[in-house]
């Protein structure tokens, strides 16, 4: 139930952020800092989420099959594979490495 609560807060904030863009005066748009922070935040968060999902296990940093998935996904992206293919390649790599005995 607690998760539902935070999920709904996230929903409200997401919509409020979008709507705010339509409601604030155009003058704010002239502020490059706003756009820059939004940009670096996006990059930083996605990089952090990638690493956490690849190498964190609770409060430990571990090297398991997910690291293999990360490498496989990077190769797929390098080869300009579409998003869905990249996701499937990551899944196959992790599942395959586990079959081979990697945790």
């Amino acid at each position, binding site marked *: 139930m607690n*998760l*539902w609560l*935070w*999920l*709904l*807060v*996230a*929903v409200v*904030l*997401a*919509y409020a*952020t*979008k*709507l*705010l*863009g*339509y409601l604030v005066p*155009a003058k704010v*748009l002239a502020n490059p800092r706003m*756009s*820059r922070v*939004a*940009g*670096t*935040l*996006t990059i*930083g*968060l*996605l*990089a*952090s*989420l*990638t*690493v*956490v*999902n690849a190498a*964190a296990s*609770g*409060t*430990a*940093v571990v090297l398991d*099959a*997910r690291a293999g*998935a*990360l490498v*496989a996904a990077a190769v797929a*992206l390098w080869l*300009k*594979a579409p*998003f*869905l293919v*990249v*996701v499937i*390649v*990551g*899944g196959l*790599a*992790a*599942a*395959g490495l586990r079959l081979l005995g990697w945790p």
Partner: protein
Amino acid sequence: MRLRDSPAAKIGASIAIATGLYGISFGALSVASGLDFWQTMALSLLLFSGGSQFAFIGVVAGGGTGLAAMSASALLGIRNGVYGMQLNALMRPTGWRRFAAAQVTIDESTATATGQSDPAEQRRGFWVAGLGIYLLWNVFTAAGAFLGDALGDPKQWGLDGAAVAAFLGLLWPRIRAFQPAAIAAVCAVVTLLAVPFVAPGVPILVAALVAGLIGWFRRGGTPGHAPGHVGDGMEPDIEPYRHAANRGGESDGLAAGKPAGGAGGAQ
């Protein structure tokens, strides 16, 4: 002009199909992360912003709290506010349309609209992409959630590896230039350093703080504010007009398209 003759509407429709399809990966990964079917659907129906949705389930999957998941999701959604300002300046929606436009203001609809120069075409592209993705994203989220439930043990199927790939896939198109790549590397290192010392989910927020500070204090080389300027991280994670060029034809009216940015987008 009828909708079927509009180049922007055609682009919007092809983007909607490509993007909507990968809702299936969100649905499957969401239930694998521990959310139930309706929580998964609530994210797609109500929150409706791929990056923020993946961020929410990514934190939950790593054992983070609901608060941390909400925070990561909200911070990643800030760019939608910037898109909203840009789209408001382009389209000037009024009345109820403004509220509907806000809900479908995401990377893909913004990129489709801002790649056009004619205001009517901008509007057509925005609505076709936005509403089309909304519909398909939700249908495929539901399909993915059913699939994820049916698969059983997520680890055995490598779904945790698929989540890693999904995040890298969302990040990849934004790090074509040196600066964004450096920011990504710094935040990745900060995250790894923070993991042993704070509760799960919090390292992501530490990285967000660092990223925000970099953006705040970074000087010079500031690109314009329209999405599509390389190096800002504010390029929408897709490249609709390159997509169209690949399909051949449809060159008329697309000259206003952004310079093709390189690596395949997240679609």
